[in-house]
């Protein structure tokens, strides 16, 4: 049953993703990509459990490394997206810059 349930979630999310992204204008494609890239760092959540299991096995080492890399992905991704989006400005606030 677990399998069916997870697959159900998976299929619905794919469709949801298609619907959400289809409407993004091309002006925003780069921030969209880096922003969604940051979301893919969600794997961090999975890494936490292995890193914290404290059984000193390879699993802990793998988990810790995974936490580090996923955090780079998450923190870097969100920050750089924010930096980019802050630059998108509407016409003229006073003309000269």
């Amino acid at each position, binding site marked *: 049953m677990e*399998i069916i349930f*997870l697959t159900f*979630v*998976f299929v619905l*999310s*794919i469709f*949801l*993703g*298609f619907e*959400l992204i289809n409407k993004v*204008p091309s*002006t*925003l*494609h*780069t921030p*969209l*990509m*880096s*922003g*969604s*890239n*940051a979301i*893919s*760092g*969600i*794997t*961090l*959540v*999975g*890494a*936490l*459990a*292995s*890193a*914290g299991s*404290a059984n000193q*096995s390879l699993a802990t080492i*793998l988990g*810790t*490394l*995974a*936490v580090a890399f*996923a*955090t*780079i*992905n*998450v923190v*870097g991704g*969100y*920050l*750089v997206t*924010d930096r*980019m*989006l802050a*630059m*998108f*400005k509407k*016409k*003229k606030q006073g003309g*000269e810059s």
Partner: protein
Amino acid sequence: MSTEIIINLVYVASAVLFIFGLKLLGSPDTARRGNLISAAGMFIAVVVTLLDQKIIAYEYIALGIVLGALVGAVAARKVAMTGMPELVALFNGFGGLASLMVGWAALYNAGNTTFTDITILLSILIGGMTFSGSILAWGKLSEVINSAAVVFGAQRFVNALILIAIVVCSVMFCLEPAVDSPYLYAVIALALIFGVMAVLPIGGADMPVVISLLNSYSGLAACAAGFAINNNILIVAGSMVGAAGIILTNIMCKAMNRSLGHVLFSGFGAVKEATKVEGEVKPINSEDAFLILEAAQSVSFVPGYGMAVAQAQHVVRELGELLEKNGAEVTYAIHPVAGRMPGHMNVLLAEANVPYDQLVEMEDINPRIDKVDVAVVIGANDVVNPAARNDENSPIYGMPIINVDQAQTVFVLKRSMASGFSGVDNPLFFGDNTRMLFGDAKQSIAAVVAEFKT
């Protein structure tokens, strides 16, 4: 049991935040808020996961998070906007690597079913090829290694062999799953090799497709890891990213009039000999360019990757402002595949303070291109090449282009008469209404700006 319920309820909330975040990314007015909301979703998901009773030691977690956050923050702050494609490629790779490791570590969980073993292998496979593919893409983009497509005769054969080997090793592993199974190491190694083989034949102007595709893979890798450890939020977030990447990939392919399969497997074919174009180019100097621009009512800039290389975006914006003051209508016409990643030019121009309502898409500018007095092509070549419309023998025939040749006058800023990235001749340079402004794009524009100011 009750913490598990709390954790999952918070996951639902964070999924909702991701959805709203992505939705708000759809408009420049709300995009920044959307990104913050999505970050908040990530934050609560991470915090609530720490409540999990399986987590007993926090030292390693703290170590990993501090290290990762430092590296990520520094990279995000330091990167130049021109270097954005490389950075996104690297981040993709790290995400993939993390998913590989999460999958691998999940093997140590007791009582995995065969279905779980399969999803573990999937997360290792997708994560591994995302990682090695992204590192290669990063190398190509930052020109650490030759960015051209590498195609060799037996490529398909070799790829097929690798795929077969992957399937065989995976089956062998599932028959007798063990954390030290030699087949596990074989799958990891093969996944890494396959990632390299997948990106190797793609080069230069096709890079936007690769980045979109790798973006999609990094999401799918997270999704597979979610299956491996029975975690809903990984599946939801991962598959939304996967879908987003696939849509972008599709848009990029359409903008180049090529199928995904063609991009993935054949490199950029100089298969057919394009009709040789010959003619006389009409060079002008900055003084003449100034006189023409001064009289223009409507000016459209068409930037390409060359603008990024020359770092000309700031002088371009300055010229745009002067032209506006002079009474001209100024637009920036951006082809979907201009630059090295989707939307690359938009970001560069936004950085230079060009308001986003002046950025127009190809479909919007083409119907009224004949009313544009001067189209200024800066460092773009293939995306304005009329051979894509007229010459059936051209390798880029059928690709939608910005029809600058139909504008009243076209300025082409170019270093010299070499052909563009894909090595295709461009009849635009010999058009009656085309004027060539040779030299470094930044210096050429700066010279015109100087004329305006005197």
